[in-house]
């Protein structure tokens, strides 16, 4: 069950000819796929593609009606491999994943796919996670397109353009027997907009029909000598075919006046930012009508030499707006113009930064610099020589005060007690070499836990500790999530450790979902999934590949047990990898699942227990030791109105889900007795009520008796 449900939105996928779709970019792409008669879809989740996978999962009925096969692939590599269906069969297929991390994983299959080429249109939709808010290393997908010769589409970021790019992509792929990559940046994926729809098309040949009529063509298989022919074919046949198609269909666009002494060549995805810069410089209007000629590359690979030559003809200078590095496009255009002897200056990374996201300000500065240098007469006076903006004093003061807000574990997260336990183990046994993996558990690297040194890729945590697995005085620890485990960790990390007789501790964090990407199910998920097979325990898989020392912990909130199990793993004489599977359900998912059920149960008059934690503020001394083992959003501090107390005390707000971590940590770390758990019982049984009444009566008598024999300062806020 994914974190976000698109059950309502997917109905928009049924829109027919001439209707208007309103919604998110991701949904628009899905609709475009159906309009194109796609035969099968797949992919692997990861922002910004997670929602696309969720949409597909929620749209299974619609897909089934059309005879479209949907696969939630085990990894990006598996997704790319699925495009093999388009090699011999004229079936359109599309897969989606996060880039560049997913493209890295997929590159083996992509390279094979691109070598043999395709018969049916093959579309690889890559969600570019670059710039602000990105969670991955900053690289370009462009390099993958170049190295394997896959055509790269980078449409203008509005829904009609993106939808058109999907349609163009399939046709381009089929016209050139080459897979096509459609690059959508993270903001475009989450863009809310509108486009005019067409009716969905059933694939002319479904995968079910194809599987009953198998085909093969030996010359499409990547084996010598065919492989050598493929490489020649790429250059001799597919490349010219692509250029011809792109030109003929006008996939790239020109805006603004035909003539002019300068112009801008830009990636389609940069279009809105460039126009905004021109709007702010007074050179474009609200509809994007511009005075500066723009050549928009909706296809960034391959480039169309004569279109570029024509655009540059008669121009003194062109600005190439190309986000990220290296500047492949700028280099190619420079080489092209140089070879043809054209006098046009190519300006790019000299006025725009070589690396980093092209934000609004960066674009305004860069385009402004280009125009001031090469066409100052186009600019109004205030833009020609702008006043240097005064750095407001206030902002620098704020930088001293405003705290950073890095990501962290959610309220009630079952991974928090795991790392609290690790911290306690650290206090007792000293620091260890710890390798981390990809997933929510990676937040352990940040305060308050500060655990984990490296992260080498999905499912590679234990593998990345391999150099230390020969052992030493202290055992190395590595962490891997259930998502990473099934993505490729079972073989690359666990199997690798067994085979190499690794003397290390491997902690598998199992929260029942691929949680960091939005709560998609994986093989070991405990939920029943109507179209996927779940409930395959990680511990069984681990034992299956030969691990002898395996401990399954079914309640991660048991901090003491977590701590003792880790300590045991670090000290046991047992040889080979020591694997701890720590399982508890992702709290976000659990709450989403349980809350409506609980509310209904209360309404139906059934007995429901809801735990909440609290702090006795007069017992809390404000040392915040608990915070250093928690970082829970619902556990905070508050300042008391008491001049006698200098330090704020712990406080738990209404968002507490009663996970138990506070009490467990207070106990395991022997912190303090200020936490209490209050179990609120709705619709209690009759005997419960009677017992409670009795208890209340007795305790009231006792407490009242004592109260009457002493001074009572209860009305006094200060005490």
């Amino acid at each position, binding site marked *: 069950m994914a974190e976000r449900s698109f059950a309502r939105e997917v109905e928009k996928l049924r829109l027919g000819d001439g209707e208007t779709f309103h919604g998110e970019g991701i949904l628009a792409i899905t609709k475009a796929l159906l309009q194109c008669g796609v035969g099968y879809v797949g992919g692997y989740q990861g922002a910004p593609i997670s929602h696309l996978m969720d949409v597909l999962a929620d749209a299974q009925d619609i897909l089934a009606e059309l005879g479209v096969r949907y696969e939630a692939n085990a990894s990006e590599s598996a997704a790319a491999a699925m495009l093999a269906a388009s090699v011999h069969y004229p079936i359109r297929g599309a897969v989606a994943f996060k880039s560049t991390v997913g493209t890295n994983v997929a590159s083996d299959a992509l390279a094979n796919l691109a070598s043999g080429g395709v018969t049916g249109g093959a579309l690889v939709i890559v969600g570019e996670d670059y710039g602000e808010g990105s969670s991955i290393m900053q690289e370009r997908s462009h390099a993958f397109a170049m190295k394997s010769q896959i055509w790269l589409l980078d449409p203008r970021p509005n829904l009609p353009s993106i939808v058109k790019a999907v349609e163009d992509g399939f046709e381009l792929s089929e016209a050139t027997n080459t897979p096509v990559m459609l690059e959508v940046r993270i903001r475009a994926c989450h863009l809310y907009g509108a486009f005019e729809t067409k009716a969905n098309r059933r694939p002319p040949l479904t995968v079910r029909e194809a599987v009953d009529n198998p085909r093969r063509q030996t010359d499409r298989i990547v084996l010598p000598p065919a492989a050598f022919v493929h490489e020649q074919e790429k250059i001799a046949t597919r490349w010219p075919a692509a250029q011809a198609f792109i030109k003929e269909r006008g996939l790239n666009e020109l805006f603004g006046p035909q003539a002019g002494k300068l112009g801008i060549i830009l990636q389609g995805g940069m279009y809105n930012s460039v126009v*905004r810069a021109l709007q702010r410089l007074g050179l474009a209007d609200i509809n994007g009508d511009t005075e500066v000629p723009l050549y928009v590359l909706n296809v960034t690979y391959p480039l169309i030499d004569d279109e570029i030559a024509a655009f540059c003809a008669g121009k003194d200078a062109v600005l190439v707006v190309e986000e990220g590095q290296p500047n492949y496009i700028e280099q190619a255009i420079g080489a092209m113009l140089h070879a043809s002897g054209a006098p046009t200056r190519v300006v790019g990374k000299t006025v725009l930064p070589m690396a980093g996201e092209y934000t609004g300000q960066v674009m305004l500065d860069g385009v402004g610099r280009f125009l001031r240098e090469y066409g100052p007469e186009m600019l109004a006076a205030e833009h020609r020589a702008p006043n240097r903006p005064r750095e407001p004093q206030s902002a620098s003061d704020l930088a001293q005060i405003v705290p950073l*807000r890095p990501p962290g574990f959610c309220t009630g997260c079952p991974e928090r007690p795991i790392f609290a336990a690790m911290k306690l183990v650290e206090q007792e046994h000293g620091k260890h070499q710890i390798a981390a993996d990809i997933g929510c558990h990676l937040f352990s690297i940040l305060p308050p836990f500060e655990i984990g040194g490296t992260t080498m890729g999905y499912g590679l945590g234990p593998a990345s500790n391999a150099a230390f697995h020969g052992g030493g005085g202290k055992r190395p620890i590595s962490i891997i999530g259930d998502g990473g485990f099934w993505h490729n960790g079972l073989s690359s990390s666990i199997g690798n450790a067994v085979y190499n007789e690794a003397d290390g501790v491997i902690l598998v964090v199992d929260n029942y979902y691929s949680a960091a990407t939005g709560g998609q199910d994986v093989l070991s998920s405990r939920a029943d999934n109507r179209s996927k097979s779940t409930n395959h325990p990680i511990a069984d898989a681990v034992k299956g590949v030969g691990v002898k020392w395996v401990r399954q912990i079914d309640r991660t909130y048991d901090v003491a047990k977590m701590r003792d199990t880790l300590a045991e793993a670090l000290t046991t004489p047992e040889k080979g990898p020591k694997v701890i599977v720590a399982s508890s359900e992702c709290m976000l998912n659990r709450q989403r699942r349980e809350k409506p059920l609980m509310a209904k149960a209360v309404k139906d008059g059934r007995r429901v227990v809801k735990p909440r934690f609290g702090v006795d503020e007069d017992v809390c001394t404000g040392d915040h030791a608990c915070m250093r083992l928690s970082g829970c959003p619902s556990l905070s501090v508050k300042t008391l109105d008491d001049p006698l107390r200098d330090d704020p005390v712990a406080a738990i707000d209404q968002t507490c889900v009663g996970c138990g971590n506070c009490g467990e940590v207070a106990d395991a770390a022997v912190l303090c007795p200020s936490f209490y758990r209050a179990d609120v019982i709705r619709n209690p049984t009759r005997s419960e009520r009677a017992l409670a009444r009795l208890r209340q009566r007795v305790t009231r008598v006792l407490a009242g008796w004592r109260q009457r024999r002493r001074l009572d300062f209860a009305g006094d806020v200060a005490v």
Partner: protein
Amino acid sequence: MTVVDTRQMRPRTPFPGQHIIKLAILAVGGQGGGVLSDWIVDAAEASGYAVQATSVPGVAQRTGATIYSIEMTPRTERMPVLALMPSPGDVDIMIAAELMEAGRAVMRGLVTPDRTTLIASTHRMLAVSEKIVAGNGIADGATVLATVRDAAKRFIGFNMDKIAAEAGTMISASLFGALAGSCALPFERAAFEAAIRKGGRGVEASLRAFGTAFERASDADATSDAADDAPQAVAGVAAPRGPAHLLARWRELCARIAAYPHAMRDMATRGLAKVVDFQDLAYGAEYLERLDAVLAVDKATGADGREWALSVAAAKHVANAMAYDDVIRVADRKTRADRFTRIRREVEAPEDALVQVTEFMHPRGEEVCSMLPAGLGRFVEARPRLLAGLDRMVNRGRRVRTDSLIWFTVLFTLAGLRRWRRRLLRHARETDHIERWLALALQTAPQNYALAVEIVACRRLIKGYSDTHQRGLSKFDRVLSAAPLLAPRDDGGDWLRRLREAALKDEDGSALDGAIKTVRSFAETGDPLAARAKAD
């Protein structure tokens, strides 16, 4: 290539007859920023605007701060070209869902005095870095509030979180109400409310929060400091209730305080209440005797010009020291008559629900030993094997139900040990510690008054239970070990304060060790300037 040559002529005005409203939202993951964004889109579309919205959402709570960008313009036949992210100096409306996020918006240049309406909730959601400091790590909200107010063209700020909580909904609803009430968007109130209704979930609660925030924002005074956010004036000490003979003695003690200098009276009254509540009236008298001694030294060293700093500090810290955190106090606090009512309120238990309360206790041998009569306790402590045996018996996490009769009675009985507390080992130890600490301060006062005040204030370092308490004591000892070195120096008090602050900074005390090293090095070399440069 597709040629779209729409512009042959120079544009006369860049935006003929139209302009783009640029709006950004800065929220913390889990605050419902996406819902707010959807509502704004709906209200704008219903009002005849073309809208583009986007965000870089991660997923839910774990993402930290998240920014949403919305641009809109009156709809025409052509599709406007709008940006996908807000730019510094180019934002008309900035909505910040928390005070520090408003600060962050200003830092990022998204709020400028020439055009930006800043709508911010002034409540705080503390960042992890603010919570994990051993002392007080809460960022200075007042300065941020003043700064963001100055940075905006118009500022609408009040506690929108509270309004939402009172209405039983999320802050997105009150932010939306404040946006509507600010009139920064040219839409009718009905359009906003229709957007909430269209959302379809928790509509009534959302509309309530929307309405309240709408009124507040449209009120001209909303831009001024809202009263509910100003720190409450500290209430005075209310008179206690109780048996007449105890009240009479209480009044006698209060009369002694009335004779103290004005500057320390309030603190002394609070301190007195705290120690009497901790033990009894006789203990209160002991407290005042200690204050008398401090006051005498204060007078002798000519403290009038110093506003009785030593006595005020003593009134506060002696009370805290005397009301130490022992098992009896915890048991007493957990079995007070009003506690269960308070817990019911805190966990928002409905009238018809039962509440069961579980405590998390983890006694160790040391704690039990400290509750023995002083002689016996020392006897046990002197025998490590005996102590270890005791520890084995008791040292285990205990979850006890204080709403159950058995455990309530156990704790109630423990609290009753109060009568014998003075004879117990813990009390002997605490009293000894207090005496030595106060003696050091009073000896220091004639030579170095400021240092004496800081010595008294070092009591703040001792807090917590078990290991945390031990670490506090050790820090206290380490800080005070520098006092003799500092006594001859005019800036001695200043240095001791720095040491204390270093000690509060981190748990393991490495900052403190560094600071002590600095003090030692200059005490030895006599070169404070070099040492200070190093310390800073």
